[in-house]
């Protein structure tokens, strides 16, 4: 009963904190550029504004275009709710499988791409084609990097993987370092951050993610943007879970839950500061360099697998 409550709290928290986190990254970036920035609440203000605006839709938009925001948002929220943030073992932990997780994200992406093409504008199609091309390269790299941990945990279930890391003695595994690097590279690409995509750009021709949702307005746009923010938080939580789960609550007593919550916030904030640093110091890649970047991530993840077999099996 108590763990079910925690589960609900966790999912709700991810949902509510996601815009704050996006605001936090934006503020960090602003500070790094010697600006004051609009504050951490700005994404929330934007969402509130968008929700109160009317929806403008192309006359030939089909049901796909209209339902896609809900599908995308629901799939992303579902994915977010199965990722443990504070408590390792939740009622939903049985379905907290990384392959299911990647599938949920793929579902959301699929509908986003369909919606992008549905209106028939050149930008939507262009964005969809770019997104799918990069997804085809990014997803295997992501799975491959998670599999490095799965190999030692003998499971693709997140809870079992976290439990395995928590229960095994602390040691530096070279395979994990490879997997972490690959995961970070993929996370940048999946969330449409610099150097792959620029979430703040206004240049239609360079957009990837933004091009697909260019025709959305009002609450539809709000849902799409909110989903993107949740996805960013989801990925940072996933990285925290897989590579630095220490401090997560195993029991549902209040002290360890509060402690786990605080630690989780710290870890995620640390990741976001690193993201802001990386984004400030880098320009966007040329589009044709993105496949190289993603295959690089795949190769690094693969090296992680190899080094696991060479150095860690039987050791």
């Amino acid at each position: 009963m108590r763990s079910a409550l925690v589960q609900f709290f966790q999912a709700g928290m991810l949902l509510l904190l996601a815009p704050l986190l996006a605001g936090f990254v934006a503020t960090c970036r602003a500070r790094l550029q010697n600006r004051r920035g609009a504050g951490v609440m700005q994404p929330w203000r934007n969402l509130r504004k968008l929700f109160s605006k009317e929806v403008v839709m192309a006359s030939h938009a089909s049901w796909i275009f209209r339902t896609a925001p809900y599908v995308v948002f629901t799939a992303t929220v579902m994915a977010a709710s199965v990722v443990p943030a504070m408590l390792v073992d939740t009622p939903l932990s049985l379905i907290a499988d990384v392959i299911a997780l990647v599938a949920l994200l793929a579902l959301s992406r699929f509908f986003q791409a369909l919606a992008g093409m549905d209106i028939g504008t050149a930008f939507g199609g262009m964005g969809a084609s770019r997104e799918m091309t990069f997804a085809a390269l990014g997803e295997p790299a992501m799975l491959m990097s998670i599999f490095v941990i799965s190999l030692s945990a003998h499971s693709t279930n997140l809870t079992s993987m976290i439990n395995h890391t928590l229960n095994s003695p602390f040691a530096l595994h070279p395979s994990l370092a490879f997997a972490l690097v690959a995961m970070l590279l993929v996370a940048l690409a999946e969330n449409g951050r610099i150097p792959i995509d620029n979430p703040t750009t206004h240049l239609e021709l360079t957009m990837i993610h933004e091009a697909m949702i260019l025709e959305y307005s009002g609450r539809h746009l709000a849902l799409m943007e909110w989903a993107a923010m949740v996805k960013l938080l989801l990925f940072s939580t996933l990285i925290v879970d897989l590579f630095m789960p220490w401090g997560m609550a195993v029991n549902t007593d209040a002290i360890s839950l509060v402690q786990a919550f605080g630690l989780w916030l710290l870890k995620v904030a640390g990741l976001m500061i690193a993201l802001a640093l990386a984004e400030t110091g880098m320009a966007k890649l040329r589009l044709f360099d993105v496949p190289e970047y993603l295959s690089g991530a795949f190769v690094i993840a693969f090296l992680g697998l190899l080094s696991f077999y060479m150095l860690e099996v039987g050791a």
Partner: protein
Amino acid sequence: MRFAVNTWFAERLGDHGIHSEFLADHHPVHMPCLEIRLHDWEQAAGEARRLEMRMVAVWAAEAGKHDISVSGSRALYVYMAFAHPEHRHALLRTRLRDDTREVQSISGHYISACRMERTLQDMFGIHVRNIPDSRAWIKHEHWPENVHPLRADFSVTRMSVEPERNAIDYDYVQSSSQGVYEIPVGPVHAGIIEPGHFRFLAVGEYILNMEERLGYVHKGIEKAMQGRTAEHGIRLAARVSGDTTVGHAWAFAHACEYASNTAAPKRASYLRGILCERERMANHIGDIGAICNDAAFTFMHMQMQRLREDMARMHADVFGHRLLMDTITPGGVCRDVDAVSCMMLMQQTRTIAAEVEHLRSIYADHPSIQERVIGAGTVCIADARDIGLLGFAGRASGDYPDERIEEAYPPYDDVEVRVAEGKLGDVATRIWVRFEEIADSARIIGQLLETLPEGDIQAAWIPPESGVSGFAAIESWRGEIAAWVRFGEGGCIDRYFVRDPSAINWLGLELAVRTVPVPDFPLVNKSFNCSYAGHDL
């Protein structure tokens, strides 16, 4: 400045049997206007091409009230201007036949003349024979066919023009090949920029061809200038393109001054030089930041914006306007600077130039931004010479037209201008040229401020007589602005023509983006940063 009559071009034309006469009521004499016969028109352009002259502009004017023939019909003249680095500008004029109103196209010799000839067709109803592209240019499809806004019989106040309802769509360049798709972009963009339409033909992510369609910000500036006095008209000229207000106002003032044979006092010309170089610095600083921002290198953008803002505030303090509008008048400038302002300007120019140098080292040390700009959007030397690419875009491509050196109008007869000589013609070289120009402008401003002569800032302005025309070419931050002004009765202007450098450089952009990946287009576009308003007029 006393120049002898420039007879070089007339002699060259004479060598090839083209008879030409100097127009007495055109000034200045070192940039003469020659009247040639209509059937020599195209051959004269061919001769100019053979002499490796640069085509400056093609325009037309109806005869003013002073020139109405006995039959009462207004003669229609077509003008073209060429420039030679050593022998300055030369204008050619010919009179069209009243019945046919035909002229031979010169686009075969100068491809950049094509859009100007299309504008002649739109605005005057002149039939240009053998024009390679006869589509309408400035007059969009909702305009009725037989209405020509720059003709005297078209009244702006009597808005009798009904928009065409069954307008045929503009005939864009198309491809029937499989796998080629079209991307229409604009005129309304996702960002807050000027309107213009770009039609891409792309294969995969590569641009096969990009076609521009402009004219969305046509404001009728040439028409609106008619009937204004020079003092009144310069306010309009200063607003041709908001980022080049000093350049346009100066070109207009200079053309008027040539026409009326007045010279601005030395102190005024120095102040104009300071204004123009400050404008150059501010725009280059803003643009370098914006180019980096288009490659998502926001840090640079923010820093450059800060510097630009500092300059704008100083301009508001010292010259009364953030963008330096309405600082130049015919015959001088209207704001003098005192010793304190001089010190402030000097100080700030130095500080900003130093900060830009610092940012330049950051830009140069970032491989990720270097990766994006090097080799992107190349215009080769041959192409640049063919279309006569102007300003920093030309200087990045191995072609170095600079009026500050070629004509050396005051104050540039007293200061040395160092031209950055780029060769590669890519985005990186254009940025490099801009950085060099910021440093050079800062040096020039310092020198002008140090040697600022005492004296008046305004010469008495006496409008010239009816029918007198003047031509001037000023090196604005974007490149050469050519302005031609003809005065009518009562000191009022009866025809004003201005060619913003964008009219030429837009073609350079079309050349630069061939075989560039689609997402690199904004980067290349920004590195040219052509003006829509200046082109559309």
